[in-house]
């Protein structure tokens, strides 16, 4: 569960993770410069291509998959890879390739949705905590710390178990578990930006606090959030697979890579192909988001380029 570590507080605070957002502001044409730096990084582009390809595969699964992923073929139970079934079939005669293709929906969907949820919750709370300070800040941060005190996956398992096993609930569980990271990150960024002269200036002119937060602070912290979000998607994909592997995510017969592995481990000897492809898919998806996230980070912070 390595990438889950990325969402842990220590990594970010210790400074190996993210640049202060302000580093971008002074540069001319930041977006174009950033894009140039990103495209210059081959590994990041590889990641981007894989991510885009997988998203396309998930979106157009109906056209890509050779079979209906939940259609059973009793004549072909656990049959090894063949021309008819390039990735073989599973314990009730589903075509594994088709399930991999459709499983991308569950995995990528869970990754994107849960992180979107985490950002949607984390960003406003972080903004409020960082900008308002005082008792509000204290309350939000105590709650955040409490959630961060429970390791990410353990919290997600507990939440998923308590909400009941389903893909939606797994997404909610992962999203909630990742929220505190974004609260913390946003707050730290806000505090850094709020001290800047241009924010002081906006305040002096008499702009209301919410306006300063949205117009002046938010745009400056977006890059840092974007990097963290990309890396968290990788963690969320593994988390979804983990929950499904434990039986707390996607439910049969709908496919998900994690639940396919859960079944496959019972047939390791008779049908090893059932275990190979879903795992390889998870690996590829996570790798792609990690590559892209690393690339984004480096591209956003020229000082840290290595």
């Amino acid at each position, binding site marked *: 569960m390595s990438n889950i570590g990325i969402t842990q507080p220590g990594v970010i605070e210790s400074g190996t993770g993210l640049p202060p957002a302000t580093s971008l502001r002074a540069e001319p044409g930041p977006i174009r410069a950033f894009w140039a730096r990103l495209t210059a990084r081959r590994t990041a582009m590889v990641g981007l291509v894989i991510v885009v390809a997988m998203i396309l595969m998930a979106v157009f699964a109906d056209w890509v998959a050779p079979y209906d992923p*939940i*259609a*059973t073929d*009793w004549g072909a*139970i656990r049959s090894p890879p063949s021309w008819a079934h390039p990735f073989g079939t599973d*314990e*009730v*005669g589903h075509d594994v390739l088709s399930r991999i293709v459709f499983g991308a929906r569950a995995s990528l969907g869970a990754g994107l949705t849960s992180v979107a949820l985490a950002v949607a919750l984390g960003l406003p709370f972080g903004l409020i905590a960082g900008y308002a300070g005082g008792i509000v800040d204290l309350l939000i941060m105590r709650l955040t710390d409490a959630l961060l005190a429970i390791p990410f996956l353990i919290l997600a398992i507990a939440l998923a178990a308590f909400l*009941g*096993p389903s893909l939606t609930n797994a997404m909610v569980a992962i999203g909630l578990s990742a929220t505190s990271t974004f609260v913390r990150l946003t707050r730290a960024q806000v505090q850094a930006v709020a001290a800047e002269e241009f924010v002081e200036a906006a305040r002096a002119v008499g702009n209301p606090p919410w306006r300063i937060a949205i117009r002046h602070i938010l745009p400056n912290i977006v890059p840092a959030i974007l990097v963290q979000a990309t890396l968290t998607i990788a963690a969320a994909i593994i988390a979804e697979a983990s929950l499904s592997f434990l*039986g707390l995510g996607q*439910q*049969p*017969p709908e496919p998900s890579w994690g639940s396919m592995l859960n*079944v496959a*481990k*019972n*047939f*390791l*000897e*008779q049908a090893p192909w059932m275990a190979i492809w879903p795992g390889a898919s998870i690996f590829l998806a996570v790798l792609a988001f990690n590559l892209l996230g690393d690339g984004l980070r480096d591209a956003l912070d020229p000082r840290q380029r290595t």
Partner: protein
Amino acid sequence: MLRLFAAGLVAGIAALSPVQAQTLRFGLMEDPDALDPTLARTFTSRMVFAAMCDKLVDIGPDLKPVPQLATSWNLSEDQKTLTMTLRPGVLFHDGEKLDAAAAKYSIERHLKLPGSQRRGEIAPIDRVEVVDDLTFTIILKTPFAPLMAQFTDRAGMMVSPKAAERLGDKFSTAPVCAGPFKFVERVPQDRIVVERFDEYWNKDQIHLKRIEFRPIPDGTVRLTNLRAGQLELLERLTPTDLPQVTRDPKLKVGSTIELGFQSIVFNPNRAGSAVADPRVRAAFDLAIDRNALNQVVFSGEFLPGNQWVSPKHPAYVKEYPLPKRDVAKAKALLAEAGVPKPSVTLTVYANNEAPQVGQVIQAMTREAGFDVKLQATDFTTALDAADKGNFDAYLYSWSGRPDPDGNTFSFLACKTPLNYARYCNPEADAALAAERATVDLSQRAEAWKSLADRVMADRPLIYLFHRKLFWAYSTKLSGFTPYPDGLVRFTGLMLN
């Protein structure tokens, strides 16, 4: 920290004794619950009790009671007084004598201990009276045919009154019974260890020195351990793993058809239920090909069935043989009922096999027009939904009891705890009352027939198949005999 160290030290010393040649390592499918015959509730705990706690009577291969702790018994003419005579000279593991007073104590404990899981099984008992040192009588409120069958299971297990008094509801931490092996230690989720009791009444037949029960929930892992020589015996082998075992010259397989059943329980009374009409339930039944289901999911190893007992059971009602799949008739019934495309949510446990069964049923019934949605949940969520009536159809499994009453009464009698279908039919109730009231076999057969007449027409639940219970064991183990109750008899077992 000190406690941690001490715990480690104790574990270390306990582990120093080498694994003996006559140590049987037995892989269980799950970690048993409390080791108290009165409070225990799982099938797996019975595996361990089979080594520790003898019963008043045991079950024979023909499902009839045979002597164990009681050597003889006699039922009065009015079927309300049972007189039992105990085996002389039997000792509990703590050296206490098993006499009529101890038997009375044990039965009363089953009846009265708060939280007793046995009370319902022997509820018709009014009181127990000691006649002499070895003889006692059980007086019933009403005739109760399944009583002897209950005594072949946990309700017939005798515990040492002294230990039970001392430990109270903590008896499970150090159970003291009168079986061939005595309790040594338990490490939750890791092992339960028992050791030969040297003063056991039948000690000449006990060759094993020690048994280690090891819970390993994953079937594949359990088998891998057996093949690697880390176990000598395992229970509930997955049928699809069978070829691997038969191929292995160092392993053997034992099997028996379970006493229980696998079924689909319908909830016709739920508001807006698509299965409210019995014709829809009949169509569902007709859409299922039980033989194909057995082939696909269980490699054809289980036994397709359609009643509360298997077709091989003496109480099977022969007038209702296994139905054949008939999709055309199923469609016709649905059209007749006015619901050509009923939408049914089928609740299944999220274990290894149930979702597979669910998926096959989903595919089969789709051909008749059903739109089955699967809802895989954990055990407790499913039970909660069943209790509250929050389900359409529920893939339900029952481990079975030696007497068919244990497979029917609580499911089909009006307002009984396992009657998840909320089935309530006066004729069925009358049939159930009739089978309970007599031990006469032909009268009971008649009652089973009239019960089947109702249930096969109303279909509050449909029975699908009966599992075969498989044990795999090392060829080093001899004397292994499968019993119909699915429990291992350790008497006579030997490791070479």
